[in-house]
């Protein structure tokens, strides 16, 4: 069992937890992820690592409640435990492999969308610790949905943009990137993490601008160790497994349309389970799957 030390709601349906997981905490690097199970009958949920404390043996996760399992996770409090936390999984970010001198020569921009803001944080923080500056663009629908702002401010040059203009710049992350570029920020490296549709359009733009771009893919996964192949995607015409070959890939080579299509696979079945969980004994149809 893995004890939850802290549990806080960051904004509507996005919450943060600090969990005791010494093996993960001692080995993880930015870019990697972990898998949890809420309880003994739970699904295996892949989640990004938002932060870690090697000495305390803890990891921080930031989660958006979207289905039956994540709502169940959200209901847990400090002092409760998770049945399983396994990781770190996937490869660390390529940035961790590069020499610090090389990194210092680069102008790096991170583009974070929605709950994808969380996995950007450890990368920006890691760069800061190595003495490397970076820009981060956080995109959110509206002001209330911007997360981790104060923590980002300490580790990077932060630009916030909201779709409705209620905070920071006005518009999508692609507009913010174009504007920053036009303002003279000639980036040589971009990392985009967020909804697939956002990553797809960021990649379209950065291809035009000629900025090499890394994306972090979050497809459906079961084991997370290369065993099931559910997370397979096409990169540069080749089949890759996000869990072991990624999760980070060259964004200009990822087949996003195929990846987005594959996300629909269990939509109806997950929706059914969610409805069943929400409505409990009062569930009498409406999910399209039962009579």
């Amino acid at each position, binding site marked *: 069992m893995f004890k939850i030390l802290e549990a806080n709601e960051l904004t509507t349906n996005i919450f943060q937890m600090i969990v005791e997981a010494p093996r993960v905490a001692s080995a993880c690097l930015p870019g990697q992820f972990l898998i949890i199970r809420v309880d003994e*009958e739970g699904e295996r949920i892949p989640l990004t690592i938002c932060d870690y404390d090697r000495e305390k043996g803890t990891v921080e996760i930031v989660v958006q409640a979207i289905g039956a399992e994540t709502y169940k996770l959200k209901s847990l409090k400090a002092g409760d435990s998770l049945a399983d936390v396994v990781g770190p999984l996937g490869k660390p970010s390529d940035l961790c492999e590069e020499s610090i001198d090389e990194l210092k020569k680069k102008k790096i921009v991170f583009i974070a969308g929605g709950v994808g803001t969380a996995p950007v944080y450890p990368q920006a923080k890691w760069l800061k610790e190595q003495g490397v500056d970076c820009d981060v663009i956080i995109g959110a629908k509206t002001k209330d949905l911007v997360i981790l702002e104060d923590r980002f401010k300490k580790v990077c040059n932060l630009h916030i943009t909201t779709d409705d203009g209620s905070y920071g710049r006005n518009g999508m992350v692609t507009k913010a990137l174009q504007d920053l570029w036009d303002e003279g920020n000639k980036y040589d490296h971009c990392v985009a993490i967020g909804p697939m549709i956002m990553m797809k359009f960021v990649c379209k733009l950065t291809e035009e601008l000629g900025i090499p771009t890394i994306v972090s893919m979050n497809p459906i996964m079961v*084991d997370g160790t290369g065993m099931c192949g559910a997370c397979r995607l096409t990169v540069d015409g080749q089949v890759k497994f996000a869990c072991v070959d990624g999760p980070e890939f060259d964004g200009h080579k990822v087949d996003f349309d195929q990846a987005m299509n594959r996300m629909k696979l269990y939509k109806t079945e997950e929706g059914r389970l969610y409805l069943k969980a929400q409505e409990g004994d009062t569930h009498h149809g409406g999910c399209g799957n039962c009579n």
Partner: protein
Amino acid sequence: MDGFVRVPVREQDAKERATNFKEVCLGYNKEEAEKEALRCLNCPNPKCVQGCPVSINIPAFIEQVKKGNVEGAYQEISKASALPAVCGRVCPQESQCEGQCVRGIKGDAVSIGKLERYVADTAREMGIKPEGAKEKKGKKVAVIGSGPSGLTCAGDLAKMGYDVTIFEALHEAGGVLVYGIPEFRLPKDAVVKKEIENVKSLGVKLETDVVIGKSVTIDELMEKEGFEAVFIGSGAGLPRFMNIPGEQSMGVFSANEYLTRSNLMKAFDENSRTPIMKAKKCVIVGGGNVAMDAARTALRLGAEVHVVYRRGEEELPARKEEVHHAKEEGIIFDLLCNPVEIHADENGWVKSITCIRMELGEPDESGRRSPVEVPGSEFDIECDAVIMSLGTSPNPLISSTTAGLDVNRRQCIVAQEETGATSKPGVFAGGDAVTGAATVILAMGAGKAAAKGIDEYLQNK
């Protein structure tokens, strides 16, 4: 009944079992087992023992069954095998112990597998446990992977008195016994969990949720955590795909994914929180035991199931018993044909698969006649799901993070057969991680050899 025919084993009716996940084979009762045991001639030079990869003293345990002494029979088997209830169910006895039985020359071989199963099941019901070590050696050994080879190696080392910890990547112990082999062939709670409990009762510790190579490396286990030897039994978990057009369509799965969802995550059960696709018409590609497991699972989840295999019936790599059971249950075999393309509908879901007819040519290096395409013979099978069961290869997670550990070109760890010793001192390996995908019992045999190898290594260290 004369001595030439074995006592038949009771099975769940084919029509009935095709709709449930309860065990197909019901096993012998006391009367049937004792009657079958009497058929054993107790040969002075028992060939059956030579046919057993873990060398169970088969005539000796059968003698105890004849006397009605289940505990004696169980302890006899336990000396050699940590997982008798598993082996009694999934071993290919026909090509091992039973294949060597002299009774088989003129009639049926003694039903050794079913007798082993009877002993293990009855002992479990009676609460009989294997006997542990009398003295502790005070040396720590790490076992990576809790599948058949790891459990066997751990059990044997614990019996010798070593302090053994098994590291398992998944949330549950058992490896292929829990994620791969379905409930209807190998019940999880009633059989697998209990046998693992027995291994733990020998003093073996188990740490789940540890991915060696990611959470911690082998070097760290040896340098920082005090393990003096390591056994790698991490299996062959990476699925293969065909790399044909349309393979990324929705509704195309690896057998590993399909079976893991159903077996490990219990998706066959309505109440499971893990989804699984309930296909209407499902094509399984491949003809091995895993293909049979996937086919019979899809059938039980309500699909019409076609097994597409590029060779003929004789060449099917699956056990005869599995093919026979699959046919009884209504699985359709489309033999001598091979998929060339998968077609999806406008929403990206599988709608059909194009196959081409094959004929058998000259035998290849494996001795099997290699299939050759018949030009212009393409035809379509309509289906809404395709399950690829083309074999698996070892996961590079460990080999790629362990300096000095040699692998061959198929990513299999290079290890000596007699001792399991690898190119790295103190590190041993066995099972599918070394051989590529094979059987439960061969993995157990390798785990057993490695336990001996590790004992010798540590005694001379």
